Structure formats: C-alpha cells, structure tokens
C-alpha cells in the first residue's frame, strides 16, 4: 500500500469513486481511495437506480438539472463504459385535489429552472405505464427527462477510469484513525498501514459520523441517522411496461420501477427501520408485505409476478434530508460529501466534480449551492426545507 498521497478519499461508493475520478481528471496524480468493504457495498449497490430533477427546492432542482443535462447524458461516453443511463422519466401520481395543487407549485418551480415537468391526466399516465391502476389517481407530474442508470456499472466505470488515471483504490481496507496536529491533517491510519496526506474527503455516507469523530469532531457535527431502506424485486417482465419510476407519494411514498437492465420490477416503500448496528442490512418480512401491498395497488397485475429477491441498505439521513457537502472549517483540508438521505447515487457525478474543483481550485463551476449544503448548518441549528425523499 502507498505510504503517502496528496488526497485520501474515505468511502468507495458512487460519491467517493466520482470524487476520485474527478480529482484525477483535474491532474491530481496522487489520489488514494479507501473502502472498508467492496466498492459500492455501502448504499450505492442497494439503491433503486433512479435519477431525477423533480425536487421541491431550488438548490436540489438546479443541481439535478445540471447532473442530468450535463453529466448523466454523457457519462457512458466520458467514462468509456456503458452505465445504462436512460431517460425513462419519473411519474408522480396525485390522489387528492390538495396534492394536485402541490404538484402545480412544484412544477412551476421546476419549469423555472428548465426542468420540463408537466401535469398530465390519468389517461396520459396510463399511456406511459400501461398496466397502471389509473382509476386510483387524479393527475400525474411527469418529467420525461428524469431517468435511471445501473449503480453497479456506474461505480465500476468511475473506479476503472480513476485507476487508469493513476488513482490507487484499496478495498477491504477500513480506516482506523485520522492524524490531526494543530488543526492540520497529517495522515490516515488504516488496518493495513498509515498513509501520510494533507487532504481528506469523508465520503462515507452512513458511516461519515465515525470518520468525523476520528478527525476530532463530534459525531453529531453532521447528524446522520442511518435508516434501513429496503427493496423487493420481481422476476423480469416484458420491457416498456413500468419504465419510469412511478410513485404516488400519498401511498406511503411507495414506488415501482422496472430495472433498466433485466426488466425486473423494483418495489420500494417508506417503511423506515432503525438498524440494530451499522452492519445490519437484514431484510424484514413486514417490509415485504407492506411494499407489495402498495405495489399491487399501483400495478394490480404485479400480483401474478414472482418476487425473486429482497434486500436492505441505508438511507444516510440528515435532519433535513439534504446532504452535507463542503469544507469543514475546524480541520484544515477536511472535506465532506455525505448524508445523502437516499439521493447520493443520482447526485454523484456533479457532486464529485464540485468537490474535486473545490479542493483544487477553491471554487466550482457546478451549480451546487454550497450555502445550502453547508456541513456547519446543523451546529447552527439551521435546517433547509426538507429535500423531497421517496421510499
């Protein structure tokens, strides 16, 4: 293992591998990425694959508009590896007049920043998702430019390209400490040795408070609570039936979306479970019953489709469901991009680019509102309006 590096990134998910790639792209020759398990093993490989700009606040809409338009659409080409990005849309469904009003407000804000969401009728929704139980809904918010990509391929593609450009990636290498002297980083301790460095990025998401503590901060400096988010997946069905992520928020934030690669239907619902530990990704039977109750109400024909798999991962949730992204003022050259609250995968390309530029240039051309995502906001008792989270 290398004994020194210019930058050490802790966390090998979509965010960490993206930061590594973008640092290498900016010409940093000496980057090390440390992952305690295998790449993607934290939250990315357990996510539902969705990518959207349909948020309900300016900061997240702007960031995601950029991510989709400028990054996701070109990512396969840029990384020379097919990440299976497809613009199959997101379809939110309203069950009450009040929801329609809220949808209209959101659509107005999204349109203002160039996101082409529009209100559609249940009949139009059924054209987009043919087996939809359209009678149960009054209207839909439809953005055909939202989409999905393959989380496995994305992490592999970022890591592969980063390695080609000289980044050293060490998997199965837990970090055990961070050496800080007089407010400056001197190195990172791992189970396999010490790496001298002056710059550290905490991209450990659900595990980020532990890393912050190693750097001398309080665990609650960024108060991330890990919640078990579970998913059930069916056997493949014919492509084209449930291509967009389809979600009636009033139905417990439940959603269905066909996997872009094999055509199985991914089903999620907002049943939050506190894990017993940070290794507890044991799926639960009550989730399976709950998620399928909603999924078969959204798409009644799913009743006849076999469930082949269920798994759990973590939503690394902050009090306002917005991530902490930026520089940590208490320790020189300590950065964080964590607490994504279920949005890390979809934000990864732009966030990686922004953090890499912040480290190297002190600013970024990515339209990322640093003030909004400021990691210090929690200790000031400031919360942003809650980022729209589903599932």
């Amino acid at each position: 293992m290398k004994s020194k590096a210019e930058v050490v990134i802790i966390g090998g998910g979509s965010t960490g591998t993206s930061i590594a790639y973008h640092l290498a792209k900016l010409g940093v020759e000496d980057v090390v990425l440390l992952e305690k398990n295998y790449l993607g093993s934290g939250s990315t490989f357990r996510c539902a694959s969705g990518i959207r700009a349909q948020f309900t606040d300016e900061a997240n809409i702007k960031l995601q508009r950029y991510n989709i338009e400028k990054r996701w659409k070109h990512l396969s080409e840029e990384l020379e590896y097919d990440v299976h990005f497809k613009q199959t849309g997101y379809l939110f469904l309203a069950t009450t007049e009040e929801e329609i009003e809220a949808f209209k407000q959101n659509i107005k804000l999204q349109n203002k920043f160039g996101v082409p969401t529009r209100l559609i009728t249940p009949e139009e929704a059924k054209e987009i998702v043919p087996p939809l139980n359209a009678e149960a809904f009054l209207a839909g918010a439809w953005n055909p430019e939202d989409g999905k990509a393959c989380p496995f391929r994305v992490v592999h593609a970022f890591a592969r390209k980063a390695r080609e450009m000289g980044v050293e990636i060490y998997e199965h290498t837990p970090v055990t400490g961070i050496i800080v002297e007089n407010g400056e980083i001197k190195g990172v301790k791992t189970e396999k040795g010490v790496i001298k460095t002056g710059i550290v990025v905490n991209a450990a998401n659900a595990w980020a408070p532990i890393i912050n503590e190693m750097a001398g901060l309080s665990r609650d400096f960024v108060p991330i609570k890990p919640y078990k988010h579970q998913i059930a997946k069916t056997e493949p069905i014919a492509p084209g039936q449930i291509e967009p992520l389809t979600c009636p928020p009033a139905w417990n934030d439940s959603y269905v979306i066909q996997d872009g690669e094999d055509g199985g239907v991914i089903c999620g619902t907002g049943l939050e479970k506190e894990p017993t530990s940070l290794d507890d990704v044991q799926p639960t039977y009550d989730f399976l019953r709950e998620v399928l109750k909603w999924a078969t109400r959204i798409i009644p024909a799913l009743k006849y489709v076999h469930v082949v798999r269920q798994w759990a991962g973590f939503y690394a949730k902050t009090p306002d469901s917005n991530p902490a992204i930026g520089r940590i003022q208490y320790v020189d050259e300590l950065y964080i991009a964590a607490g994504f609250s279920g949005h890390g995968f979809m934000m990864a390309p732009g966030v990686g680019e922004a953090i890499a530029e912040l480290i190297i240039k002190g600013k970024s051309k990515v339209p990322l509102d640093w003030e909004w995502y400021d990691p210090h906001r929690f200790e000031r008792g400031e919360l942003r309006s809650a980022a729209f989270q589903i599932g």
Partner: protein
Amino acid sequence: MSDKKNIIICRCNEVTQEEIEALIDQGVTDIEMIKRLLRIGMGPCQGRTCLPMVISILARKTGKKPDEIKLPATRIPVRPVPAGVLVGEMESDGNEE
C-alpha cells in the same frame, strides 16, 4: 479445447464462461463486482447453479483457494413467490382465494 462462448455458467441470465473469464482478465476479481456486472446469481435460482462454478473459475484464474472466496449474500425469498401470495390474496399454487 471446449468453446467457452458456448458454455453457459449462469443459466438464469445466460452468462458464459468466456464473459466471466474476460471480466477477470480485465482485473475485476471481486466476486461481488463480478456478480453485479454480469448478473450471475441474480436470477430466479439465486446462484445455486452458477456461484460454485464462478468461484472455481475465479480460484483457478487468481490462484486463490476456493474456500478463500466468500459467497455473496443470499437474498430472501429462497425461491420465487408470486407477489399475490405474499400479500395474502393468492394461494401458493397461484390460485386466487
């Protein structure tokens, strides 16, 4: 020599020996990543057929002992079940109640 293009290792997702070996040759030697990039073990059989074979290929190509290669997580349900059964609207034989 056998034609590796025609040797199916994962029957659920039709993955050949050639594809698995090519990925390992590219440096992807972690079974968790091989599983996800080729979707071995992710079909209805949940890896019962393919995973032991993938482990032996991986062991042969990396010089590891097969028992050093940990099996990926097993997911429930152990065999496919219609969603209707799990929500209590259908018998396990597929008949509606």
